[in-house]
């Protein structure tokens, strides 16, 4: 196979129905975005699984590194005041 026939990789995101977010469904190779979209429809939505599709060139995605998990997410552990359960409210007070 010659170098120039390698098609770039696209990530596919699908909105399963109106009102929901797009969710990552998988990936596929295509010559361009239009072909990626057409192929994504054929591969991922043959049974009405989607009402909208996004395709994104995989190499344009910037991802956090798993090694940085600690420094990125651990600080949230000490900020329990960000959760509603942190606050004391008398049992007989309603709708709060």
């Amino acid at each position: 196979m010659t170098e120039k026939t390698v098609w770039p990789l696209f990530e596919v995101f699908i909105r399963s129905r109106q009102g929901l977010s797009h969710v990552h469904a998988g990936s596929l190779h295509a010559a361009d975005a239009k072909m990626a979209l057409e192929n994504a429809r054929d591969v991922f939505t043959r049974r009405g699984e989607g009402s909208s599709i996004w395709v994104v060139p995989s190499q344009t995605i910037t991802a956090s590194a798993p090694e940085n998990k600690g420094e990125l997410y651990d600080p949230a552990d000490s900020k329990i005041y960000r959760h509603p359960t942190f606050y004391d409210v008398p049992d007989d007070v309603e709708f709060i």
Partner: protein
Amino acid sequence: MPAREPDCPERRAAFDAHVAAEGKVEPRDWMPAAYQKTLIRQISQHAHSEIIGMQPEGNWISRAPSLRRKVILMAKVQDEAGHGLYLYSAAETLGVSRDEMEEKLLDGTAKYSSIFNYPTLTWADVGAIGWLVDGAAIINQIPICRCSYGPYARAMMRICKEESFHQRQGFELMMALAKGTQAQHAMAQDALNRWWWPAVMMFGPPDGESVHSRQNMAWRIKRKSNDELRQKFVDMTVKQAEALGLEIPDPDLSFNSDTGHWEIGPIDWDEFWTVVKGHGPCNRQRMAHRRNAHEDGVWVREAAVAFAAKQRARTTQQAA
């Protein structure tokens, strides 16, 4: 693929403990090289099976006996192409390229499921494949939905959802023949006679001889042993054959009331290894067909790339 931290006993122990506690592994996480290698081999082999598996049934699309059967069969074969794609994509997250995998299939170094090296001689074989081969595949695949490697597990869930239609359409087709004329019934029985043992062998060699089993179980890549899965298939299928009024071609088949399981006679493992080593009835034909399809498609792939480049050039020109 990001550069991985080097292997060391502590890292290895942490990984083993993580998967043993049913933790999942995602593409950018650290993983032992052997775990990565095993998964690449298994997932790509699985993908190849889906792609080669399109051939035996594809062979009957043009001769399906009704429009209803034709659209069903086309939908099924198209699903298998999709399954191949989901799996190739999952394998790519481990750092192997689609082209490398394709090359290994075409040059014969990668394997695919031996079941697809058997011929589809009659229309009833299409029913037998859906009922038995997809039936066995489902039993094999359900435990992999809980595989420790996230992308493989997710691909498997999508596949399993689609497989159930495959098995049911096959059973229905067999039912139509089994309850049809005497000649149709005989055709269904003949298909069962030819596909039964190869389907039973789809679960691989007996537990004692299975090479990678123990490590794969510990890593939560494999969940149930070959013999456990095979037993499940036999128990399930015996009852289904009864419903069809067809006879399983095994004089030793008997019900063990102590265990509650059906027991089968000896499996011809020589046949299994002969086919695995490339000497089954259709190995050469399947590979030749795949290679031709790949070569015939070169100009299409090149043309698509040239067209995309031209479109890009045009948009940049307009923007300038």
